[in-house]
């Protein structure tokens, strides 16, 4: 008997793809039906649809992606040290400055990034003042590079200069390392492009007082388990991108005893631990490199369509894909963030989307885990329901569920992770990012926070490139 006769003997259950008029009349007849609000796949681009159809069911892609998410999930990052960037970051030298996002030339950079670079040049003692710094840069004396290409990440402008101390994160499962600076706190800070004396003095204090103290404490530890802290913090209302209250507290609880075991004086101790205590975003600069160490381990798996980097430089948004090149970025103009503004600021004040902190979303936390972080909703605008809906929606564009990073409000379902460019294109659903907004002028600081998505063009380009690279090989 054919399936048609089986159908005749079953209750009819319909998926209505397209106009909802037909669904209404099915409801009227009490026939069970679900409305699928269809939109043209791949934005209606036939070349992309063809690429999708070619690779959607490709077993090699499936296997490569399974491997990619296994590596991301298995990665086990520990904070093991803090040291000058030039001592630890591969390829770093005295006249090199790293920035967030995809590669960009000085003349094209946005205000906050330029301001931060000028600050870093002065901080390094390479120039006396702003004018001299600009002159030096324009002469081509300074080499720039994306932090993401140097096993590093930085929030907002993401500037890392040679003398800056960076957290050293070791992924003990795969043996690779990742680096990130120390979070300076809020207000006038380098990552928003501020470069006044106050800002540079704080950076110097971090370099000369804070970092050596933390280094002493870390030397006593067997490494601080960042995976464990992240996993707990996700159950305490953090999403570990814009909300790090719980994670910072947990980190503080871990590190404090080691600080007490050092030879620091009581005053030094109070100053140093007070810095951590007073900055509830301290953990952001650990959450980011922890994510980075996991995603770097998953890069370079042939046939994998999993995204291993999402990053913005304030002008362009760029992504990298596991099965494509190490330095192969797919970029498009960065979007503007939609959300809430601090009093006195409007949309006109904001710079486009900026920073490497989207490494958290790439990891499956941050915006992806927003449903478990109701408090963040007040910060970025919207309702708790929206946040849960965002987290649920992300399952549609990812390869797996990370049971290490589960979401309480989704009945402890493992968070969606392993962004698959094929699924993004097929569903027209873009990864959701919650993020701070920088003032478009250097040094003003944060003007608000909200929700933003990567430009779809990044994924389209990556898919086309993927098709070029693999279509012959796998056919």
């Amino acid at each position, binding site marked *: *008997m*054919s*399936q*048609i*006769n089986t*159908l*005749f003997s*079953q*209750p*009819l*259950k*319909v*998926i*209505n*793809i*397209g*106009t*909802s*008029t*037909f669904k209404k*009349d*099915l409801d*009227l*007849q009490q*026939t*069970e*039906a*679900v*409305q*699928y*609000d*269809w*939109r*043209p*796949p791949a*934005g*209606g681009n*036939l070349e992309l*649809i063809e690429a999708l*159809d070619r690779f959607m069911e490709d077993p090699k892609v499936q296997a490569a992606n399974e491997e990619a998410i296994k590596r991301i999930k298995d990665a086990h990052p520990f904070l093991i040290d803090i040291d000058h960037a030039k001592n630890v970051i591969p390829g770093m030298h005295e006249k090199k400055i790293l920035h967030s996002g995809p590669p960009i030339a000085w003349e094209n950079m946005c205000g906050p990034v330029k301001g931060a670079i000028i600050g870093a040049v002065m901080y390094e003692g390479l120039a006396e003042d702003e004018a001299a710094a600009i002159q030096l840069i324009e002469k081509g004396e300074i080499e720039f590079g994306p932090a993401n290409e140097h096993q590093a990440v930085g929030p907002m402008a993401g500037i890392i200069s040679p003398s800056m101390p960076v957290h050293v994160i070791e992924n003990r499962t795969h043996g690779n390392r990742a680096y990130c600076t120390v979070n300076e706190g809020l207000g006038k800070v380098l990552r928003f492009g501020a470069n006044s004396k106050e800002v540079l003095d704080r950076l110097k204090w971090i370099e000369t007082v804070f970092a050596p103290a933390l280094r002493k404490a870390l030397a006593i530890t067997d490494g601080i388990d960042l995976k464990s802290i992240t996993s707990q913090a996700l159950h305490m209302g953090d999403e570990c991108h814009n909300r790090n209250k719980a994670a910072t507290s947990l980190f503080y609880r871990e590190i404090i005893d080691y600080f007490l075991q050092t030879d620091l004086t009581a005053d030094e101790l109070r100053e140093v631990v007070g810095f951590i205590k007073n900055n509830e975003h301290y953990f952001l600069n650990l959450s980011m490199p922890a994510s980075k160490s996991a995603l770097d381990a998953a890069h370079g798996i042939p046939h994998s369509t999993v995204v291993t980097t999402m990053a913005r430089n304030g002008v362009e948004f760029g992504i990298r894909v596991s099965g494509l090149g190490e330095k192969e970025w797919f970029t498009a103009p960065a979007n503007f963030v939609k959300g809430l503004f601090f009093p006195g600021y409007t949309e006109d004040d904001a710079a486009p989307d900026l920073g490497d902190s989207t490494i958290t979303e790439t990891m499956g936390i941050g915006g992806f885990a927003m449903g478990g972080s109701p408090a963040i909703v007040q910060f970025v605008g919207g309702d708790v329901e929206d946040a849960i809906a965002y987290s649920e*929606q992300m399952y*549609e564009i990812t390869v797996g569920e990370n049971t290490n990073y589960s979401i309480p409000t989704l009945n402890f379902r493992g968070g969606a992770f392993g962004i698959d460019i094929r699924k993004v294109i*097929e*569903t*027209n*659903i873009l990864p959701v990012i919650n993020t701070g907004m920088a003032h478009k002028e250097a040094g003003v600081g944060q003007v608000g926070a909200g929700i933003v998505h990567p430009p779809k063009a990044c994924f389209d380009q990556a898919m086309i490139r993927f098709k070029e690279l693999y279509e012959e090989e796998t056919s």
Partner: protein
Amino acid sequence: MISKVMIEKNAYHDSVTLMSLSGKVLGVEGVEEAVVSMATGMNKELLDNIHLLTDEAKEATENDLIIAVKAVSEEVLEETLQFIDDALNKKKSSKKSGQEQTAETLNKALDYLPDANMAIISVPGEYAAREARLALNKGLHVMMFSDNVTIEDERKLKELGREKGLLVMGPDCGTAMINQTGLCFANNVKQGEIGLVAASGTGLQEVAVQIDRLGYGVSQAIGTGGRDLHKDIGGIMMLEGLRALDADEQTKVIALISKPPAKEVQDKILEEVSKINKPVVVGFLDGDQVAVEQSGAVFAPTLIETARQAVKALDSSVTLDKEISETLVNYAQNEQASLQDKQQYIRGLFCGGTLTSEALSILRSEGLAVKSNVAKKAEEKLDNIHESVGHTLLDMGDDDFTKGKPHPMIEPSLRNDRIREELLNEETAVLLLDFELGYGSHEDPVGESIATLSETLSELKNQGRHVSVIAYMCATKQDKQGYQNQVDRLSALGIYVAASNEEASKLAAMITSKEVK
């Protein structure tokens, strides 16, 4: 005149919703032009034609929504934009408040309804084949309302369906009834023992309706899409449907409905028919009676005959009254008497394509020379669809009339201008109209045209003229729009509502013939 063009990025709405919204907006007093549509190439052209294609609109993609309005005043413009906004967004909020779940992907839909067994696809044609293939690969039977699917894709899909034992109804399939549920455009027909397979939407509706009116019912009604009997498809779904109905215990009689297929396809179908043990009625409009009867099946040249023969095969005791009643003859005589000399012709404005074909066939058999846009014979073809010549029957659902507009079964008002034009034409003796009720159809088809009819008829009356208007309502008493109410409003205007499309055609022929027998 003041205009405004807005683009909403990434705001996809389906075309049926948008077209009916455009229609409503155009009906607002003071609105000159209105386009609410996705920014496809065709729609941009449309916008250009009315000089509303702004630079921003030029840049927009198929995923972006264009809202363009030209109105007499700022006030009307703003009100209209607000109206559009409400109409588009009301849907969203009601979605949120109900516990109704809406999916954005097929996988999500299957999460919500894991044991789904049918997918209805009404997405734009260029994407429809892909969605159908994905659905078939998930083990779902498929009904494709979408048209503009290539014949190659149709064949591949039907071959895939046959391989998997799944139905592929369509593309361009408007009607099916599976397990007593009407899909897309279907009437609420009594449950019964006659199984139907049809390559025609309104053909299937009419046969099912007439079976219902004769007091019998339908077990399953499978649509195949109009091209199934094309030689490149070879009747794959009609054959699959036939076999499935043969194996179905509820089905005692099988009826096939189609326009005449290509010879080789007809041979294949009839060969299969000859192997079926159940009685089969082959309703091939204007078809090959001899070949059909050789296969052991009963031949029916029209839709109504298909219904009658199927009922007769099921219940030989049934009496089928085909005689024209005396009342009808009297009615025709009266109408004839009130016509002027110049009024000689029948003008038919149909929403149903196969009803048009059936009317053409019946009028031809009554000895009339008729032109139509559905005609296959060279001498019956209409040169210009915008100008009626002699007896003319128009399928207003034809692509030439519906480009960028909804089908008249969804939006019957699209027929109004032509109704008025034909009524005022001094050569028109009889205006033939059809109305389709049932699922999928407009909520109040008569209501959409009643004002036009009533105004034009009284205008004629004031001029001392009269045109016979004969309507047929393809509907059952159970249909959701309320059959009697629809009929009563037509009757109140002196419009004769016929019991079948055949009766309407025959009555029209009688009125226009020189002597009523």
